[in-house]
């Protein structure tokens, strides 16, 4: 090694250069990454899988896609019933099998192209193509021949090749889209506002395929190339940092879109999420709140939980003795201390439920057994099945849950009650999320924690009841009942709302007799949101369409807060981000605050 290399002068020079480079780098990074705060910033809780509507599933994806695309319908921010979106109107045949959508003439893609019925036909075809591998593709399987087109098999399993021309989705002309179903789907219009069924822009997709034959799959979704038809377009996207949405001037209803920019931050850490809200860097958290903060937050004007179409329950593996005995399952369900769980563990206003259908109103004539009466009945059932004092010893029950403090706390409360009332010993077992899912699917458990969130509000109970058909992909209990399957199939065909209601009650009654699942509580939405923010309501699906969002002025805010207890009515000073408010009268126009 040359001595000069080790000379102090050179070494100092090298050190100095390195240091200067470092500083320059720091300044460079700092400068390039800087973005002004958006008009509205929310925590999207995780990185989105993709901006391609056909292939995604998940809540964070939905929040973004509802901003940048528009389906045939959108949903009312309060009732979540379908409203006209890209389609201006539609007709439904009396038997509920044929929908004809009349496209909105003024609807435009972000590059100025009109949104046509052909776009939707192209997008639905792409959604069903096997190589798209859409996880949600089953949503359209009730369309004539769609299941065979998607999977090469009919519903009854016969193999059949189907050409697209035979599938019941046709653009009759640029303005008219006809969809024909094999059986009526009561929530079909709600599906048309569901993000997997949003349209994609054919010309830009195909242009990307020509330009980037190797990498189009990633390229066409880049912000600079993505053409959308929603109220917002994607301006910037950085992994694990943010998605910046900007108002789409070509959107047909752009004059009623209030915010210019929206930032979606994928904050995973709940503590950070709350910290950012408290320091004003984020305006809306949807969940992602540490449960121990909930009692504190409930005293504030910006945290008002609302009923949410979701249900927390325990699945029971009915193939494992002694759990194959429905008396045992019923006894276990009877002594679950539901009220103690919602009051002492979850604390955010969740409601105890005795049915897997959440927010079910209790029959005042015939309330569910609770407390000592329930325990006595449970002990009677146990004795009848041959267990309890003087009977066979009851084996230890293993309860499986995915690793999380809340799930553990709930399980401990239940374990305590089972031990106390029935002498049943319970062993808790936690598994990492994907392992837990695997165990559940393969019936490698005895009792396991589970939950389900509904996808449509009408008919809401069907979300939950349809899970438990024999062999259903999401049954996961080993339970099956022919009469139950028949009722569920009939619900699909029924057009009369009253009869449909009765069918659902009948099906639910079977579940309540057989207990393949032990219901625990109904969910609430946990939105921590600046009180001044309007157009975002805690609705049953907790689904929010950014086209309705705006900031209120002081007057409207005071009006809204008037419903709260007196100490929460103070109007916080100043608007957000330099006082950007909605166009005048907008709040009234959307109504219902």
């Amino acid at each position: 090694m040359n001595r000069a290399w080790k000379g102090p002068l050179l070494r100092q020079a090298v050190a100095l250069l390195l240091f200067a480079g470092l500083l320059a780098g720091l300044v460079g990074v700092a400068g390039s990454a800087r973005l002004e705060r958006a008009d509205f910033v929310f925590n999207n809780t995780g990185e989105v899988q993709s901006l391609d509507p056909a292939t995604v599933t998940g809540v964070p994806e939905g929040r973004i896609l509802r901003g940048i695309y528009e389906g045939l319908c959108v949903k009312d921010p309060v009732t979540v019933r379908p409203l006209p979106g890209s389609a201006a109107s539609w007709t439904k045949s009396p038997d509920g099998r044929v929908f004809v959508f009349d496209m909105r003439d003024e609807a435009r893609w972000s590059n100025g192209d009109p949104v046509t019925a052909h776009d939707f036909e192209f997008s639905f075809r792409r959604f069903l193509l096997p190589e798209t591998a859409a996880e949600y593709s089953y949503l359209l399987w009730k369309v004539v021949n769609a299941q065979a087109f998607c999977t090469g098999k009919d519903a009854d399993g016969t193999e059949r090749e189907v050409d697209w021309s035979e599938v019941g989705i046709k653009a009759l002309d640029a303005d008219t889209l006809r969809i024909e179903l094999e059986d009526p789907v009561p929530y079909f219009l709600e599906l048309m506002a569901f993000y997997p069924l949003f349209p994609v822009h054919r010309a830009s997709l195909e242009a990307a395929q020509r330009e980037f034959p190797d990498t189009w799959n990633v390229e066409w979704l880049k912000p600079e190339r993505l053409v959308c038809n929603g109220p917002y377009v994607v301006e910037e996207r950085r992994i694990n940092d943010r998605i910046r949405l900007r108002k789409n001037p070509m959107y047909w209803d752009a004059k009623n879109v209030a915010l210019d920019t929206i930032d979606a931050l994928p904050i995973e850490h709940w503590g950070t999420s709350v910290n950012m809200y408290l320091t004003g860097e984020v305006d809306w958290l949807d969940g992602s709140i540490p449960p121990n903060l909930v009692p504190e937050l409930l005293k504030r004007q910006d945290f008002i939980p609302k009923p949410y179409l979701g249900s927390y329950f325990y699945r029971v593996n009915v193939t494992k003795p002694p759990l194959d005995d429905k008396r045992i399952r019923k006894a276990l369900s009877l002594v679950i201390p539901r009220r103690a769980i919602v009051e002492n563990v979850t604390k955010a206003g969740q409601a105890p439920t005795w049915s897997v259908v959440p927010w079910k109103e209790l029959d005042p004539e015939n309330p569910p057994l609770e407390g000592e009466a329930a325990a006595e009945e449970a002990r009677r059932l146990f004795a009848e099945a041959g267990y309890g004092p003087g009977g066979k010893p009851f084996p230890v029950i293993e309860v499986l849950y995915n690793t999380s403090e809340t799930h553990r706390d709930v399980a401990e409360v239940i374990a305590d009650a089972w031990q106390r009332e029935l002498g049943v010993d319970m062993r808790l077992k936690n598994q990492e999320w994907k392992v837990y899912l695997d165990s559940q699917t393969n019936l490698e458990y005895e009792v396991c924690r589970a939950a389900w969130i509904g996808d449509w509000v009408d008919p809401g109970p069907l979300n939950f009841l349809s899970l438990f058909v024999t062999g259903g992909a999401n049954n996961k209990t080993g339970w099956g009942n022919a009469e139950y399957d028949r009722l569920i199939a009939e619900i699909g065909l029924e057009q009369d709302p009253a009869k449909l209601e009765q069918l659902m009650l009948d099906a639910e009654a079977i579940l309540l007799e057989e207990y393949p699942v032990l219901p625990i509580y109904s969910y609430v939405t946990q939105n921590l949101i600046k009180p001044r923010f309007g157009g975002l309501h805690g609705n049953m699906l907790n689904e929010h369409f950014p086209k309705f969002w705006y900031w209120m002025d002081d007057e409207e805010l005071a009006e809204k807060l008037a419903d709260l207890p007196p100490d929460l009515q103070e109007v916080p000073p100043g608007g957000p981000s330099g006082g950007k408010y909605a166009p005048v009268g907008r709040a009234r126009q959307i109504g219902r605050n």
Partner: protein
Amino acid sequence: MLGFLLRRLGWFVITSWVVITVSFFLMRKVPGGPFSGERNLTPEIEANINAKYHLDWPTWKQYLHYLGPLNLDERGLFGDRSKPFGGVLTGDLGPSYKMRDFTVNDVIAQSLPISVMLGLVALMWALALGISAGLVSALRPRTGLDLTMRLAATAGIALPNFVIAAFLIILFVFLIPLFPVAGWGTLKHMLLPGFALGAPRAAYIARLTRTGMLEVLSQDYIRTAVAKGLPNRLVLMRHALKGGLLPVVSYLGPMTAWILTGSLVIEKIFRIPGTGSHFVNAALNRDYTLAMGVTILFTVLVYGMNTLVDLAYTFLDPRIKLEES
């Protein structure tokens, strides 16, 4: 020197191959897959997805395909129009299964510079605090000052970085609002997470420096230097530091790799879009390609850093020859 580097390269190839192979097969053995979720897929849809991502192939075939450069795929990974996936040997780490709008190369290219920047800030904190504390301790051994420094160092090692982060946030965000609570983009965003990440390392460095310096300071050549009348400052800078910092240098290699990639918790708390969170998320999501990608990245970093450290030894200590290492 050249021989040394070539030998290192050879071992690098073998090490990487073992790491890739072992992690590939281990990962496929873990229950659950990239597409399992709360909603179970019907078998037909699952078949479509598995076919699209080749998860229906036997594991050995997936492995050969992943390794490349032989392309086993007649139709390309994404339908017939797409480029055949090149495999790791061509530098193509494949598409991410979970962040499907990005390739693994994209993910690493976006996140690594951020982690490097965070790591540099942490490194500066660690070295500046660690070496100065260590020096003070070594020069005034068994005094109150020494004791205080050592206590602080012990506390620094014992406290996990997320506890330090929580203290920093309470202190400098909520009580004295000097810094933003989280995020990335300006120098202000970097100082707190850099400190939280660097502090435990600083503590360790302080102890290494103290031990190293105490040993060197008792050597004959230092006594000689002092005896011939050199000022203390010169003795320290010219003679003692070189030898005294050797333990610190050998610790620098693994530490740098660790700081660049092991900052998961700090990245989450301060919402920094670096590489650290991909390590854990990729594994939790069973994002096979991304998990492989970051594992390979980590292997390269650790190996590269250790080689650099070995090279640095020869500069600092003429007694060490590369050929012997």
